[in-house]
């Protein structure tokens, strides 16, 4: 088939991820040049620490979005998890590691329910996870209405204290949970049949069915995974703040989705990389770090900048989609 000329190796499909990585390094370089003292390991470690829980949830969300779905419940799951652990500790003196395991169990049940409703009852992802979002937020308030801080819990203290010193910062154990999840996410997406099936479902669900792939099982698993990772994110969040309150992390799901999109994952499904999400989360963390350095650059400007970044990526994706469509025609 000599008529089908080989295109250069740099495929248009790689444009989003390359853009993400370039933006990340450009922003870091720019910030480092503009603000002396910005470029420090301490700073970097801090961005890592504050965003570890976002990163964990974003790994799950990446799978969801690659499969062509959406999960709006993750922010409420975090809130529920944090207040549940805090309340159990305060009222019943329950060691946090036990309440964390209970939370993971709840997350499992929630994910299974979401997945089954979407897959077997063929309900829209958006609505099912919206319902889950209200449910978990409501349950968080049922548990407790105010803030509870967690003191003298040996497990949480251990997780915060133990870590690896990196320069002036301390990469606590729970940050390593994020890194572990990240690596696992990359491996699962690339080296397991489940991971590849996620791409297939998002690429073209009816094709995937015709090709004999286990579409239903895959979809259920995706939501189980997302809910479990949201719970794990909630646990890390609770350790990080050593407290819980039910009105935490309102709107977190949208921040996570934004990070995933900035990470180059296609909102229409079928394409994206977990490593892209990693950079997406770091870009996100960086943007919200900037207000500390420029007094005029307040948090709302950070919001606007994130909005612009998301817009950029949607435009890039549209461009990529058109480009590939044209490549096929010629």
């Amino acid at each position, binding site marked *: *088939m000599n008529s089908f000329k080989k295109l250069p190796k740099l495929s248009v499909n790689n444009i989003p991820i390359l853009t993400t990585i370039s933006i990340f390094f450009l922003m870091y370089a720019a910030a480092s040049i503009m603000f002396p003292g910005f470029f420090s390991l301490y700073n970097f470690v801090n961005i890592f620490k504050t965003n570890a829980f976002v990163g964990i949830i974003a790994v799950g969300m990446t799978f969801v979005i690659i499969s062509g779905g959406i999960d709006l419940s993750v922010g409420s799951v975090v809130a529920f998890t944090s207040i549940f652990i805090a309340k159990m500790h305060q009222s019943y003196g329950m060691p946090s590691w036990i309440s964390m395991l209970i939370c993971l169990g709840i997350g499992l049940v929630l994910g299974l329910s979401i997945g089954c409703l979407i897959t077997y009852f063929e309900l829209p992802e958006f609505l099912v996870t919206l319902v889950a979002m209200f449910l978990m937020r409501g349950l968080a308030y049922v548990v407790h209405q105010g803030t509870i801080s967690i003191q003298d819990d040996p497990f949480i203290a251990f997780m915060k204290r133990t870590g690896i010193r990196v320069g002036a910062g301390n990469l606590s154990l729970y940050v390593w949970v994020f890194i572990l999840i990240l690596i696992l996410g990359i491996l699962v997406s690339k080296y397991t049949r489940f991971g590849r099936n996620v791409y297939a479902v998002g690429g*073209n669900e009816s094709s995937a069915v015709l090709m004999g792939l286990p579409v239903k099982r895959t979809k259920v698993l995706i939501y189980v995974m997302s809910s479990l990772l949201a719970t794990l994110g909630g646990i890390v969040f609770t350790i990080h703040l050593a407290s819980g309150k039910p009105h935490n992390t309102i709107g977190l799901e949208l921040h996570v989705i934004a990070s995933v999109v900035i990470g180059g994952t296609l909102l229409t499904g079928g394409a994206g990389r977990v490593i892209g999400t990693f950079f997406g989360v770091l870009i996100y963390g960086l943007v919200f770090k900037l207000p500390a350095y420029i007094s005029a650059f307040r948090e709302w400007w950070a919001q606007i900048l994130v909005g612009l970044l998301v817009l950029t990526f949607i435009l890039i994706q549209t461009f990529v989609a058109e480009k590939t469509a044209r490549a096929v025609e010629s």
Partner: protein
Amino acid sequence: MEEILKVSNLSKGFPGVQALSNVDFTLNRGEILGLMGENGAGKSTLIKVMTGFYRRDSGDIHFDGQAVDFTSPNDAVRHGISTVYQEVNLLPQLTVAENIFIGRQPMKKRGGIDWRELNSRAENAVAKLDLDIDVTRPLNTYSVAVQQMVSIARALDISAKVLILDEPTSSLDAAEVEQLFTVMRRLKSEGISIVFITHFLDQVFAITDRITVLRSGKNAGEFTTEGLSRMDLISSMLGKEFEDLDASRWGSSLGTGEGDPLVSMNSVGKKGFIFPFDLTIRPGEVLGLAGLLGSGRTEIAQLLYGVEKPDEGVLQLNGQETALSSPRGAIDEGMGFCPEDRKEVGIIPELSVRENIILALQAKRGALRYIHRKEQEAIADKFIRALNIVTPSSDQLVKNLSGGNQQKVILARWLAAEPRLLILDEPTRGIDIGSKVEIQKLILELAKEGLALLFISSELDEVVRCSSRVAVLRDRQVIGELDGTDISESQIMKTIAETA
């Protein structure tokens, strides 16, 4: 010859339609069989029943000597029957290699997909088809032709004994078709049996050993390709013998219109869509388009109406060169288009007869210039009377009308916009015989009033009856034009059957 797939007495009904009745079908080992038939013949239903997509109502299927009852397409694939559809059913964003192996990836001993092994096996799989492509590139960077080949490669790798190709050539150019044929011949020599579904007469004669024809869900003929005349094949597909072709020609009263052409298309064509053609339509004439399913009739209408842009040729309207880029432009130029599938794109079922009729006129005037209710009612009533639309009132919802009356509502819609040219694509499909005749008469009356009409129908008798001239199409090409006394069903069939 050894039979690999044998279907006997197969029936399948859907609510309101008997899609297949007592169909027999035999496929021999190592042969290429053409499966042909017009719209509604039951080709796709037969394929879908054989591959487990639908369950049959009655009948037997034997595969490789054993009675089988596939429960899903996947089940059929596992047994060795693979189908490659016209729309490529693969995953465009994944690589070629992954598309061939997804769900069956080779795994490393320690776990994890062995990508190196996967890619090298994929290279072998495509090499078997003489395909020199980089299997690590995403599928969507290749043309549809290559994607189809990849689809075949996947089917073969799952060890296909029977390959069903459902209109694989409809979006391929001549060179790509030849390439596909080379592969098909190779597979045949390796003992694989192929069912080839196509509308293209030239292709079916070029590649098949035998041809099975279905018509209205029944067996209409089984032929050995060698020695078969095109005429016999066409007669069998259309269900008509020469003798019973009766020529009642109303259109002959029209003449071929008056004055300068309203439309003149000069070498207009679009690559992979329709070959360049010349057409003229004068006011007061009905130009009929005749040809088998998929011959390019609707494509001409779409180019004329601005749905698709031609990539060569000149379109003149009233002697003025015009480039139409959208139906909107065509409407502004005074065209109306009654599309083929009125349910999908024609009527708006939840609106009333009046609202449906007024739609095109409103669009033409622009949304801001509201047509007063009184005026709307007057227009609707006028057309309900003129076209004899049977409805209790103009406020009746269109969905409650019969098919024939719905079709008249669409006609009324375009007539209300006072077009100079009306394109009718299958205006009588699926409506009862009485309404058919009424609509045919209406077409002639409109032409007599000076309207130019382009009339598309797969029913030859109707084209013959209503047209003042007929352009004949085959395999996406205008191959002849008939007028006056030359217009007859047998002449149209002869023209289609003539070898290029």
